[in-house]
């Protein structure tokens, strides 16, 4: 998505490749002892009243902030290094000639791992179509790439637990696979602008540059600096909201409109979420507030997925190459998938 496009190219100091390998175990140790450390600080050193809500809020904030940042830094670093092994060109090669359903599964998986930004959506789309990759497979890629996001994954894991994170990732993947497959079955080729098929793409002439392991470590570090510097404020805000309401009895004023019992809460969440666009980190404070006020997990997740997975700016870009009916089909299919996931969550929990 837009925020993944790195617009910073100032000279960064090259780091030694072994530094992450020293820092990661160190971070793991801090992570492991964090809860005990914070408890010791809050109850023994500061002597705060154990039963008060304020103490709980302070403890929550002091514990969750470093926890989430450690997780975020490590995961973004690892994903950054992994992504240096992937490129849209390689992904295209891998997807060429794959049968429909297997192609959808692969495209969705590669959508998560391939470095991709919305400003490249058009050349990527044309590049895929040019080499004969079916439209349905291309759409699986385009759905998965923004929807499953490492920052969202870390935050869900850190703030709501591993089950929520896992459900988000697996259902997101499923939505990408199935919506691409459905779009493929609908035979929508006629809704692509004619000129797209007439384009004769040249051969990629750039020589494969040798990427050393040190370069990959550098790529991971750059990703950390780039992403953390952009999202830290949202994360602190999210944790602060969480801390402020932590331990207090929820007012449940959201429960009536986004609670489990209101069947229309999921469609409503998606309807509001689709035109909105925010980065994954920005949505977490809102999610935190919604959940604390009694919104159900299904409705809240559906809201998050529709905000980060479908957005107006992306549709405007795609409109240049595909006709309106296909945009409508694309949004409806993905939104339906998100709604099904929302309903499922509401039934399970």
């Amino acid at each position, binding site marked *: 998505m*837009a925020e993944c*496009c*790195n*617009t*910073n*190219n*100032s*000279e960064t100091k090259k780091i030694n490749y072994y530094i992450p390998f020293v820092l990661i175990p160190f971070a793991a140790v801090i992570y492991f002892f964090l809860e005990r450390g914070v408890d010791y600080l809050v109850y023994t050193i500061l002597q705060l009243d154990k039963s008060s809500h304020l103490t709980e809020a302070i403890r929550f904030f002091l514990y969750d902030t470093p926890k989430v940042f450690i997780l975020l830094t490590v995961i973004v670093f690892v994903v950054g290094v992994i992504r240096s092994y992937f*490129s*849209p*060109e390689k992904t*295209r090669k891998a997807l060429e000639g794959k049968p429909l359903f297997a192609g959808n599964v692969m495209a969705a998986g590669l959508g998560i791992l391939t*470095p*991709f*930004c919305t*400003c*490249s959506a*058009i*050349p*990527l789309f*044309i*590049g895929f179509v*040019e080499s004969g990759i079916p439209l349905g497979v291309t759409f699986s890629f385009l759905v998965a790439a923004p929807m499953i996001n490492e920052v969202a994954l870390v935050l869900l894991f850190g703030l709501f637990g591993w089950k929520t994170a896992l459900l988000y990732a697996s259902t997101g993947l499923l939505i990408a696979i199935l919506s691409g497959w459905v779009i493929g079955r609908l035979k929508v080729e006629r809704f692509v602008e004619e*000129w797209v098929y007439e*384009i*004769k*793409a*040249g*051969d*990629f*002439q*750039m020589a494969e540059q040798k990427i050393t392991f040190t370069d990959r470590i550098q790529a991971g570090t750059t990703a950390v600096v780039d992403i953390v510097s952009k999202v830290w404020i949202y994360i602190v805000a999210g944790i602060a909201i969480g801390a402020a309401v932590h331990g207090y009895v929820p007012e449940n004023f959201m429960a009536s409109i986004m609670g489990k019992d209101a069947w229309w809460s999921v469609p409503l969440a998606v309807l509001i979420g689709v035109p909105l666009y925010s980065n994954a980190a920005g949505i977490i404070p809102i999610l935190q507030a919604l959940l604390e006020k009694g919104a159900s997990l299904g409705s809240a997740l559906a809201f998050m997925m529709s905000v980060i997975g479908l957005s107006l700016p992306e549709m405007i870009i795609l409109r*240049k190459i595909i006709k309106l009916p296909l945009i409508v089909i694309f949004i409806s299919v993905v939104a339906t998938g998100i709604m099904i996931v929302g309903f499922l969550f509401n039934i399970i929990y």
Partner: protein
Amino acid sequence: MKIFILGMGCATCNKLEDTVRQAVKETGIDAQIEHVTDIKKIMAYGVMTTPALIIDEKVVAAGKLPTLADIKKMIGGK
């Protein structure tokens, strides 16, 4: 020397153009710089990620933003 920046007007693409202009100015190399926004022309180079940097009809970078020093090397080494 002919330098093309391929991009459809995203923030990263504009930043690349700025950096290229600065590199050309600082190295004093005689170069024509053009920002190509026509998707058909962009695809003719076979790139799938923008911004891309073309120097004398050769793709030297795609999908990333090279640093000023890197660009100077790319235009200076010719």
